[in-house]
Structure formats: C-alpha cells, structure tokens
C-alpha cells in the first residue's frame, strides 16, 4: 500500500487499485481490502469494478460492519451499465466484460455523488 499518511491528517487518501492487483485476489480478499481502506477513511478507486456477485457480497459484509457513531456504510459509484451492451447469457459465459467499469468507493459520511451519467461521475469528497 502507498506510504503516504492516511486520512487522519489534512487530506483524504485515495487508493487507485489496478485491475492486475485485483485479478490475483479472491472475492473476499477484494471485499476486505476495499472495506479496510474505506473504514480508514480512504477513497478506493478500482480500475475494474466488481462482479455482480462480489457487489452483492460487498453490500452484505458492509451491513454486518455498520456500527452507530463509527461506520455508517459506503458510497459506491460506477458508470451505469449500458443497456445496448447488455451481453446476455452468452456474453457472460464468454467473459464478464461488463464488470470492467471504473468504480469509486468511499465512506458514506465523506463522499457524496453530485452527478452521474453514462460517461461522468462527479463526487464531492470531504474530510470527516
């Protein structure tokens, strides 16, 4: 992980995680890495997003970790899936190309989505 100071200083730490780094991890390792970072107040950006199954598990694990006055959950944004590129069963069997969407994840109390469309995600990140 980067050596820069975590977000308890003046700034907000952003971790950009490459697809290559994620490829070598099991689903739960990915989720753990994301949530550990987010719980430390970091903004985690994934070059390639998660698969639908991993997204489902991320929501489930996030829920088990929410704790009053400590962790309220996550804000997560990816570009909307384009309906025209919906690949159907065959596409999913041949490869999950639909998961390759840049994804931004941060603590719910520090990141707010201002605008999202198919090509732009605009978010406001604040210190705690």
């Amino acid at each position: 992980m980067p050596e820069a100071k975590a977000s308890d200083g003046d700034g907000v730490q952003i971790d950009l995680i490459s697809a290559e780094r994620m490829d070598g991890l099991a689903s739960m390792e990915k989720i753990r890495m994301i949530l550990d970072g987010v719980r430390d107040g970091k903004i985690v950006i994934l070059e390639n997003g998660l698969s639908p199954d991993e997204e489902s598990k991320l929501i489930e694990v996030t829920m088990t970790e929410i704790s009053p006055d400590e962790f309220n959950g996550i804000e997560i944004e990816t570009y909307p899936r384009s309906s025209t590129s919906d690949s159907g069963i065959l596409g999913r069997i041949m490869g999950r190309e639909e998961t390759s969407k840049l994804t931004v994840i941060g603590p719910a109390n520090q990141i707010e989505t201002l605008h999202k469309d198919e090509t732009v995600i605009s978010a406001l990140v604040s210190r705690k």
Partner: protein
Amino acid sequence: MGLLSGLRDSLQRVTDSLFSEDEQKRIGIYGPPNAGKTTLANRIARDWTGDAIGPESHIPHETRRARRKENVEIERDGKSVSIDIVDTPGVTTKVNYEEFLDYEMEKDDAVRRSREATEGVAEAMHWLREDVDGVIYVLDSTEDPFTQVNTMLIGIIESRDLPVLIFANKIDLEDASTQRIRNAFPQHETVPLSALEGDNMDEVYDKIAEYFG
C-alpha cells in the same frame, strides 16, 4: 425388463410432476427503501388470500426481516398461478441511525432500528443469491431511478438469470414518471401502478402470471 423400465419411467414422471407442483416459485419483492414494497406485497396478499404480510410505514426500513406469504393463487384467464411472495427489506449501502431521529424516535430506538435494518439488508441479499426464483423490482416513480443501488441490484439479478419485472410504483403522485424508469432499464418490462390506490392492478397480475406462472 422393458415392462419394468417402462413402469419405472412412468412412476418417475408421476413423482416429478407431484414434486414440481409442490415446489412453489418464490418471487422476491426487491427495491430501495420506501419504494412501497410492503404496500405492494400487502395489496397482492389481500387481493388473493385475504391476509396482509406486514406493517407499512413512511419511515424507511419499516421492513427489517424478509417475510414470506405462501400459496398466493392468482387467477388469470381461467388459469391459476400459485406463487410464494417474499417481501424483503429495502436494499442500501448505508444506514445511519441519525436519520431515524428526524421521525421523533429516541436515540436507543433509532440505534436498534438501524441495527435491525442492516441485518435485514444482509438477509435480503442472501435471499437474492440463494432463495428466490424470480424478482419483482419496485421503484418509486417520483424518484430518480439511476442510483447505484438500483444499477447494482438489477445487475445482480441479471447475472443470476432470474426473471424480473420492474414495477413503477406511486403513479398516483403528481411527480411520477414511468418513462424515466423505462429509460433507465429499457431491457426489462416496466409496469406502472399504485399499490396504495390499487391503480392498474389488472395489468400487474397479468404480468405476474405471464412472467412467473
């Protein structure tokens, strides 16, 4: 031998058909908090069984446990379709107890509600991965459907190849827009309705029978 194997095959067909009749299709009602999922579940259950499923409320996360209503028989065109309805807690990626304080709730109650809400969301996700055969996705048609939770959940449902119907609820309200929902998810059938007022329920039941029968 031929007679014996023929007999065995016949028996197998009979047991298979008995088994498939016993195996009710479980249809999960999913969506974000406050979309009107329980109001819809109650409307369906009352129309076809006479009972309700659970309490409705304008406070988010009123439903914090998945509730199943078995053997809901819906009659369409002289045919009968029997399903189990599973009303699930609204799905979100965040729960802050402080939002419940705005509804004149004491802090202890708000914290308890938020804890139960998080358990409910996890339970809903588990049902989606393991235990439902089809999904009714309910959206408040006065709200922007282009949210991350909606995008993710529809993606999860599609990845599991579950049949899905999108219900654009609350069309009785002035700001409602069914078209906005159709534009957001054009790959799926969208049915407008008001579960509260009972508007367009004939089409709702037609589509349920068509998709899940």
